[in-house]
């Protein structure tokens, strides 16, 4: 497994996707700062707090941008072996299909968590710069650490709920279907993020869980967690079973 993970990392050498994903992780924090600057000039009386910035950053990452970026990464990790026809080279070594696919999921987890940390760190740096140039309230490491916990937990939930996209990439052997599906899911997030029904929609429910908003929706925690677990487990199992059974062309 260690060798497989090392190889997964080596496969990303010179990969444009790696650079693009790092830039992608900077988009949400940058947008928050851009929004802050806009507010600063349009509503000078409004006080922007450090927590506001992190809160919005976490929200948009989990509901919109992060979902799409992480889905693209998942689709890329799994589908590139088909598009570059490398499965017949790697599996002939031999490498067991199960170990191979698990290493892919671990790599996906590492990648998502790395991007989460980049988003968190860049939000911290950009907020500091914003504070130096304009004004920011309650800028402190305590707030940053609190949101680090929230964003890391958010990253874990996103990894868990992104497994169906990995299956779609394996099934369709390409990027297009997972990306379109991710866009549709993100639209669902937009529609449900302020609704009680969002608790039954695993991608929205993840954020609600982290923020402790489930109680307000009236749905039991067990139901919400069960739905998230079903989506996650189905994604894992479908990926593993399909990959084990399919013929390598």
């Amino acid at each position: 497994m260690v060798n497989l993970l090392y190889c997964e990392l080596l496969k990303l050498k010179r990969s444009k996707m790696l650079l693009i994903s790092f830039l992608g992780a900077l988009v949400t924090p940058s947008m928050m700062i851009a929004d802050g600057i806009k507010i600063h000039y349009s509503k000078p009386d409004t006080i922007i707090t450090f927590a506001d910035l992190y809160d919005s950053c976490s929200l948009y990452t989990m509901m919109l941008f992060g979902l799409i970026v992480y889905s693209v990464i998942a689709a890329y990790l799994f589908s590139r072996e088909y598009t570059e026809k490398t499965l017949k080279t790697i599996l002939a070594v031999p490498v067991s299909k199960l170990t191979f696919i698990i290493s892919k999921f671990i790599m996906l987890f590492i990648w998502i968590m790395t991007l989460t940390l980049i988003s968190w760190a860049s939000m911290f740096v950009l907020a500091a710069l914003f504070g130096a140039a304009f004004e920011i309230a309650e800028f402190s490491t305590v707030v940053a650490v609190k949101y680090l916990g929230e964003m890391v937990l958010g990253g874990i939930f996103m990894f868990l709920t992104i497994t169906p996209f990995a299956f779609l990439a394996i099934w369709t052997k390409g990027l297009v279907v997972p990306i379109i599906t991710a866009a549709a899911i993100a639209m669902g997030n937009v529609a449900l993020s302020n609704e009680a029904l969002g608790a039954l929609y695993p991608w929205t429910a993840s954020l609600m869980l982290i923020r402790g908003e489930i109680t307000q929706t009236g749905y039991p925690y067990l139901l919400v967690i069960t739905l998230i677990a079903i989506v996650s487990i189905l994604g894992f199992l479908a990926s593993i079973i399909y990959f084990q059974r399919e013929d390598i062309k």
Partner: protein
Amino acid sequence: MSAYLIETIGLTKKFGEQIGVKNLGLHVPQGKIYGLLGRNGAGKTTTMRMLLNFVHPTSGTILLFGTDYKKQPDKTYRKIGSIIETPGFYDNLTGRENLKILARLRGQHRKDGIDYALEVVELNKEANKIFSNYSLGMKQRLGIAAAIMHEPELLILDEPISGLDPIGIHEIRKFFLTLCKEKGITILISSHVLSEIEQLADIIGVMHEGRLLEEVDMIELRKRNRLYVTFTVSDVNTAALLLERQFGTSDYTVCDNRTIRLYDNIDRRGEINNCFVSNGLLVTTVSVSEEKLEDYFSELIGGGGIG
């Protein structure tokens, strides 16, 4: 232990209703080069994919090194090197990095395995070039390097020299022969080009429409190649009748309405010619030829060329 390094019993693969491979009984002896020959779509690649555990057989048995291929696959497949069609490598990595991945996953058999393989395929100078910038021939050579870098006991090669230039083909062919004759490596190689296989193989298996039509030793096969005499005559029916009645032979084939091919009584062709003429036939050509392998295979698969 089985005398064969590869043996399949009743191996069948169906793709829905379509049959890819039917009831295949392949026998690849140790230390030999076995050429799997057949037209495009004959089932060669599917067979090799099944042998490499990429494709699940519908039914049948595969024995590799005398044991079921699903028992200890880790141990079995480490002794095998393979190329299936165009080799697949990571576009963003160099040739050397691609081989490094395989060496890392497999565990290095020899420390200089990567350099050895790159040198054999003459890619050592291009080892640090990005794979996506490789030419088709270079990609194919890297595939061969990947297949041999761990010094396998068995090589399964599907059309390995397609895309190589003539000098490259000659070099790689020579290398395969050396591997087999000097190091005792068994090679299963497929091709739809007869001349390719003819120069390499000790044994040939002919596949057609998913079936293995014949497994034949090349020495035996060459013995089978017979001389024949071709007569171009005005009436093949009369000629055939005369051959049977006057010369007591039925070892001939009527090629078209003017040509008849006779496989025995070659030395009596002058006498036969006189007989034809005296019986009112106009003989325009009498020529002695050798039946080539191509004709033999063409006949075996029921017409049409191999390539």
